[in-house]
Protein backbone atom coordinates (compact mmCIF):
# COMPACT_ATOMS: atom_id res chain seq x y z
CA UNK A 1 0.00 0.00 0.00
CA UNK A 2 1.37 3.48 -0.84
CA UNK A 3 2.23 5.61 2.24
CA UNK A 4 -0.69 7.99 1.66
CA UNK A 5 -3.07 5.07 1.97
CA UNK A 6 -1.91 3.99 5.41
CA UNK A 7 -3.80 6.63 7.38
CA UNK A 8 -6.99 6.02 9.32
CA UNK A 9 -10.18 5.52 7.35
CA UNK A 10 -13.01 7.91 8.05
CA UNK A 11 -15.86 6.46 10.05
CA UNK A 12 -18.15 6.71 7.00
CA UNK A 13 -15.68 4.76 4.82
CA UNK A 14 -15.10 2.18 7.57
CA UNK A 15 -18.82 1.45 7.92
CA UNK A 16 -19.44 1.51 4.16
CA UNK A 17 -16.70 -1.10 3.62
CA UNK A 18 -18.06 -3.16 6.51
CA UNK A 19 -21.65 -3.00 5.25
CA UNK A 20 -20.57 -3.94 1.72
CA UNK A 21 -19.40 -7.39 2.81
CA UNK A 22 -22.81 -8.21 1.34
CA UNK A 23 -24.27 -6.55 -1.78
CA UNK A 24 -26.32 -3.49 -0.86
CA UNK A 25 -27.71 -0.41 -2.55
CA UNK A 26 -27.20 3.08 -1.13
CA UNK A 27 -30.27 3.18 1.08
CA UNK A 28 -29.49 -0.35 2.33
CA UNK A 29 -26.06 0.85 3.48
CA UNK A 30 -27.60 3.78 5.36
CA UNK A 31 -30.15 1.55 7.08
CA UNK A 32 -27.68 -1.26 7.84
CA UNK A 33 -25.15 1.09 9.44
CA UNK A 34 -27.85 2.87 11.42
CA UNK A 35 -29.16 -0.42 12.81
CA UNK A 36 -25.71 -1.81 13.56
CA UNK A 37 -24.66 1.29 15.51
CA UNK A 38 -28.09 1.64 17.14
CA UNK A 39 -28.60 5.03 15.53
CA UNK A 40 -25.21 6.50 16.45
CA UNK A 41 -23.92 6.63 12.87
CA UNK A 42 -26.37 8.19 10.44
CA UNK A 43 -24.69 8.48 7.05
CA UNK A 44 -25.93 11.58 5.26
CA UNK A 45 -27.02 10.75 1.71
CA UNK A 46 -24.76 13.49 0.28
CA UNK A 47 -21.77 12.21 2.24
CA UNK A 48 -22.56 8.59 1.32
CA UNK A 49 -22.93 9.34 -2.39
CA UNK A 50 -19.59 11.15 -2.49
CA UNK A 51 -17.86 8.36 -0.56
CA UNK A 52 -19.33 5.66 -2.84
CA UNK A 53 -18.01 7.34 -5.99
CA UNK A 54 -14.56 7.83 -4.41
CA UNK A 55 -14.45 4.19 -3.31
CA UNK A 56 -15.50 2.93 -6.76
CA UNK A 57 -12.80 5.15 -8.28
CA UNK A 58 -10.20 3.65 -5.92
CA UNK A 59 -11.40 0.16 -6.76
CA UNK A 60 -12.21 -0.69 -3.12
CA UNK A 61 -15.84 -1.37 -3.97
CA UNK A 62 -17.58 -2.20 -7.22
CA UNK A 63 -21.05 -1.50 -8.62
CA UNK A 64 -22.79 -4.76 -9.47
CA UNK A 65 -24.46 -5.13 -12.85
CA UNK A 66 -28.11 -5.87 -12.34
CA UNK A 67 -30.12 -5.48 -15.53
CA UNK A 68 -33.41 -6.41 -13.81
CA UNK A 69 -33.34 -3.42 -11.52
CA UNK A 70 -30.82 -0.95 -12.85
CA UNK A 71 -32.29 2.01 -10.94
CA UNK A 72 -31.10 0.65 -7.63
CA UNK A 73 -27.38 0.24 -8.03
CA UNK A 74 -25.88 -2.33 -5.70
CA UNK A 75 -22.32 -2.26 -4.46
CA UNK A 76 -19.93 -4.80 -2.97
CA UNK A 77 -16.44 -4.73 -1.48
CA UNK A 78 -13.55 -5.85 -3.76
CA UNK A 79 -10.41 -7.84 -2.89
CA UNK A 80 -8.34 -4.65 -2.63
CA UNK A 81 -11.08 -3.07 -0.50
CA UNK A 82 -10.92 -6.09 1.79
CA UNK A 83 -7.15 -5.70 2.07
CA UNK A 84 -7.53 -2.06 3.10
CA UNK A 85 -10.28 -3.00 5.55
CA UNK A 86 -8.16 -5.72 7.20
CA UNK A 87 -5.24 -3.30 7.53
CA UNK A 88 -7.60 -0.83 9.23
CA UNK A 89 -8.76 -3.54 11.66
CA UNK A 90 -5.13 -4.18 12.60
CA UNK A 91 -4.61 -0.47 13.20
CA UNK A 92 -7.72 -0.28 15.38
CA UNK A 93 -6.62 -3.34 17.34
CA UNK A 94 -3.28 -1.66 17.97
CA UNK A 95 -5.10 1.43 19.29
CA UNK A 96 -7.13 -0.65 21.74
CA UNK A 97 -4.08 -2.64 22.86
CA UNK A 98 -2.20 0.58 23.59
CA UNK A 99 -5.21 2.06 25.35
CA UNK A 100 -5.63 -0.92 27.67
CA UNK A 101 -1.89 -0.95 28.33
CA UNK A 102 -1.84 2.66 29.51
CA UNK A 103 -5.39 3.62 30.42
CA UNK A 104 -6.32 0.39 32.20
CA UNK A 105 -8.05 -2.89 31.58
CA UNK A 106 -11.34 -1.28 30.64
CA UNK A 107 -10.90 -2.38 27.03
CA UNK A 108 -10.17 -6.05 27.73
Amino acid sequence: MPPDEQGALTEAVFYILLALHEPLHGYGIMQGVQELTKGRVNLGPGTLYGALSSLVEKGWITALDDASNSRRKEYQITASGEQVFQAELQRLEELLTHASLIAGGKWK
Partner: protein
Amino acid sequence: MEMRKTLYRFFGNFEKEEAWLNQMASQGLHCVDYVLCRYKFEQGAPSEYIYRIELMEKDPRSPEGMAYLEFLEEAGIEVVATHVRWVYLRKKAEQGPFDLYSDNASRIKHYRRILRLLLPIGGLNFFFGIGILHNWQPINLLNLGASFLLAIPAWSYYQRIMQLEKESEIRE
Protein backbone atom coordinates in the same frame (compact mmCIF):
# COMPACT_ATOMS: atom_id res chain seq x y z
CA MET B 1 -60.08 21.70 1.28
CA GLU B 2 -56.44 22.06 0.45
CA MET B 3 -55.03 25.47 1.18
CA ARG B 4 -52.38 26.92 -1.06
CA LYS B 5 -50.25 29.97 -0.53
CA THR B 6 -47.67 31.79 -2.65
CA LEU B 7 -44.98 33.97 -1.09
CA TYR B 8 -42.18 36.02 -2.61
CA ARG B 9 -38.83 36.21 -0.83
CA PHE B 10 -35.22 36.81 -1.71
CA PHE B 11 -32.47 34.99 0.17
CA GLY B 12 -28.76 35.50 -0.36
CA ASN B 13 -27.89 32.80 2.15
CA PHE B 14 -29.19 29.30 1.51
CA GLU B 15 -29.02 28.37 5.20
CA LYS B 16 -31.35 31.23 6.11
CA GLU B 17 -33.64 30.15 3.26
CA GLU B 18 -33.58 26.57 4.55
CA ALA B 19 -34.37 27.75 8.09
CA TRP B 20 -37.28 29.81 6.76
CA LEU B 21 -38.72 26.82 4.84
CA ASN B 22 -38.46 24.69 7.99
CA GLN B 23 -40.08 27.41 10.06
CA MET B 24 -42.95 27.58 7.54
CA ALA B 25 -43.20 23.77 7.69
CA SER B 26 -43.48 23.94 11.48
CA GLN B 27 -46.65 26.01 10.89
CA GLY B 28 -47.94 23.37 8.48
CA LEU B 29 -47.03 25.29 5.32
CA HIS B 30 -44.97 22.95 3.16
CA CYS B 31 -43.12 24.27 0.15
CA VAL B 32 -44.07 22.38 -3.02
CA ASP B 33 -42.44 24.55 -5.68
CA TYR B 34 -39.85 27.26 -6.13
CA VAL B 35 -39.23 29.47 -9.15
CA LEU B 36 -37.03 32.57 -8.86
CA CYS B 37 -38.02 34.04 -5.48
CA ARG B 38 -41.54 32.59 -5.69
CA TYR B 39 -42.39 29.90 -3.16
CA LYS B 40 -45.57 27.84 -3.35
CA PHE B 41 -46.85 26.24 -0.18
CA GLU B 42 -49.48 23.66 0.62
CA GLN B 43 -51.20 23.38 3.98
CA GLY B 44 -50.53 20.12 5.82
CA ALA B 45 -49.80 18.79 9.29
CA PRO B 46 -47.33 21.00 11.21
CA SER B 47 -43.70 19.78 10.91
CA GLU B 48 -44.63 17.00 8.49
CA TYR B 49 -41.49 17.58 6.42
CA ILE B 50 -37.85 18.59 6.94
CA TYR B 51 -36.40 20.78 4.17
CA ARG B 52 -32.82 20.93 2.89
CA ILE B 53 -31.23 22.96 0.11
CA GLU B 54 -28.11 21.81 -1.71
CA LEU B 55 -25.88 23.13 -4.47
CA MET B 56 -25.29 20.05 -6.59
CA GLU B 57 -21.93 19.22 -8.15
CA LYS B 58 -23.54 18.60 -11.52
CA ASP B 59 -26.53 20.07 -13.33
CA PRO B 60 -29.72 18.30 -12.13
CA ARG B 61 -30.65 17.54 -15.77
CA SER B 62 -27.29 15.94 -16.62
CA PRO B 63 -27.02 12.12 -16.37
CA GLU B 64 -24.76 12.43 -13.28
CA GLY B 65 -27.13 14.92 -11.66
CA MET B 66 -30.14 12.74 -12.38
CA ALA B 67 -28.35 9.69 -10.95
CA TYR B 68 -27.75 11.61 -7.71
CA LEU B 69 -31.38 12.73 -7.45
CA GLU B 70 -32.55 9.15 -8.05
CA PHE B 71 -30.20 8.04 -5.28
CA LEU B 72 -31.81 10.57 -2.93
CA GLU B 73 -35.31 9.49 -3.95
CA GLU B 74 -34.44 5.88 -3.05
CA ALA B 75 -33.66 7.13 0.45
CA GLY B 76 -37.16 8.60 0.77
CA ILE B 77 -36.14 12.14 -0.15
CA GLU B 78 -38.44 14.15 -2.38
CA VAL B 79 -37.17 16.68 -4.92
CA VAL B 80 -39.36 19.74 -4.45
CA ALA B 81 -37.71 21.95 -7.07
CA THR B 82 -34.45 22.55 -8.88
CA HIS B 83 -33.10 25.96 -9.76
CA VAL B 84 -29.94 25.97 -11.92
CA ARG B 85 -27.65 23.76 -9.80
CA TRP B 86 -29.62 24.32 -6.59
CA VAL B 87 -31.98 21.60 -5.45
CA TYR B 88 -34.78 21.93 -2.87
CA LEU B 89 -35.35 18.68 -0.98
CA ARG B 90 -37.68 17.44 1.70
CA LYS B 91 -38.18 14.29 3.71
CA LYS B 92 -41.00 13.18 6.00
CA ALA B 93 -40.03 14.08 9.55
CA GLU B 94 -41.44 10.75 10.82
CA GLN B 95 -38.60 9.00 8.94
CA GLY B 96 -36.08 10.48 11.36
CA PRO B 97 -33.47 13.25 11.14
CA PHE B 98 -32.57 14.54 7.70
CA ASP B 99 -29.10 15.92 7.06
CA LEU B 100 -27.39 15.62 3.69
CA TYR B 101 -23.92 15.56 5.20
CA SER B 102 -22.66 13.62 8.19
CA ASP B 103 -19.02 14.67 8.37
CA ASN B 104 -17.01 17.88 8.30
CA ALA B 105 -15.17 17.01 5.09
CA SER B 106 -18.35 16.81 3.01
CA ARG B 107 -19.81 19.94 4.67
CA ILE B 108 -16.64 21.87 3.81
CA LYS B 109 -16.81 20.57 0.25
CA HIS B 110 -20.37 21.87 -0.09
CA TYR B 111 -19.50 25.36 1.23
CA ARG B 112 -16.49 25.50 -1.11
CA ARG B 113 -18.67 24.57 -4.07
CA ILE B 114 -20.99 27.49 -3.22
CA LEU B 115 -18.09 29.91 -2.84
CA ARG B 116 -16.74 28.87 -6.24
CA LEU B 117 -20.14 29.80 -7.66
CA LEU B 118 -20.52 33.13 -5.80
CA LEU B 119 -17.02 34.58 -5.99
CA PRO B 120 -16.76 35.02 -9.80
CA ILE B 121 -20.24 36.57 -9.97
CA GLY B 122 -19.53 38.82 -6.99
CA GLY B 123 -16.11 39.80 -8.36
CA LEU B 124 -17.45 40.67 -11.80
CA ASN B 125 -20.21 42.81 -10.28
CA PHE B 126 -17.67 44.55 -8.06
CA PHE B 127 -15.42 45.47 -11.01
CA PHE B 128 -18.41 46.69 -13.01
CA GLY B 129 -19.56 48.55 -9.92
CA ILE B 130 -16.33 50.52 -9.55
CA GLY B 131 -16.00 51.08 -13.29
CA ILE B 132 -12.69 49.33 -13.92
CA LEU B 133 -14.00 47.36 -16.89
CA HIS B 134 -15.78 50.18 -18.75
CA ASN B 135 -17.11 53.76 -18.52
CA TRP B 136 -18.78 54.00 -15.18
CA GLN B 137 -22.42 55.10 -15.09
CA PRO B 138 -24.67 55.60 -12.09
CA ILE B 139 -26.60 52.45 -13.04
CA ASN B 140 -23.46 50.51 -12.14
CA LEU B 141 -24.17 51.27 -8.51
CA LEU B 142 -26.55 48.32 -8.88
CA ASN B 143 -23.56 46.12 -9.69
CA LEU B 144 -21.79 47.40 -6.62
CA GLY B 145 -24.89 46.68 -4.55
CA ALA B 146 -25.13 43.17 -5.99
CA SER B 147 -21.49 42.46 -5.18
CA PHE B 148 -22.06 43.46 -1.54
CA LEU B 149 -25.24 41.39 -1.44
CA LEU B 150 -23.18 38.37 -2.53
CA ALA B 151 -20.28 39.22 -0.23
CA ILE B 152 -22.41 38.87 2.91
CA PRO B 153 -23.33 35.17 2.49
CA ALA B 154 -19.88 34.44 0.99
CA TRP B 155 -18.26 35.78 4.15
CA SER B 156 -20.55 33.65 6.32
CA TYR B 157 -19.73 30.48 4.30
CA TYR B 158 -16.03 31.32 4.56
CA GLN B 159 -16.35 31.61 8.35
CA ARG B 160 -18.12 28.23 8.45
CA ILE B 161 -15.32 26.63 6.41
CA MET B 162 -12.67 28.04 8.78
CA GLN B 163 -14.62 26.79 11.80
CA LEU B 164 -15.11 23.32 10.31
CA GLU B 165 -11.47 23.08 9.26
CA LYS B 166 -10.40 23.89 12.80
CA GLU B 167 -12.76 21.24 14.10
CA SER B 168 -11.35 18.79 11.52
CA GLU B 169 -7.95 18.94 13.23
CA ILE B 170 -9.57 17.15 16.15
CA ARG B 171 -12.46 15.11 14.78
CA GLU B 172 -14.13 14.17 11.51
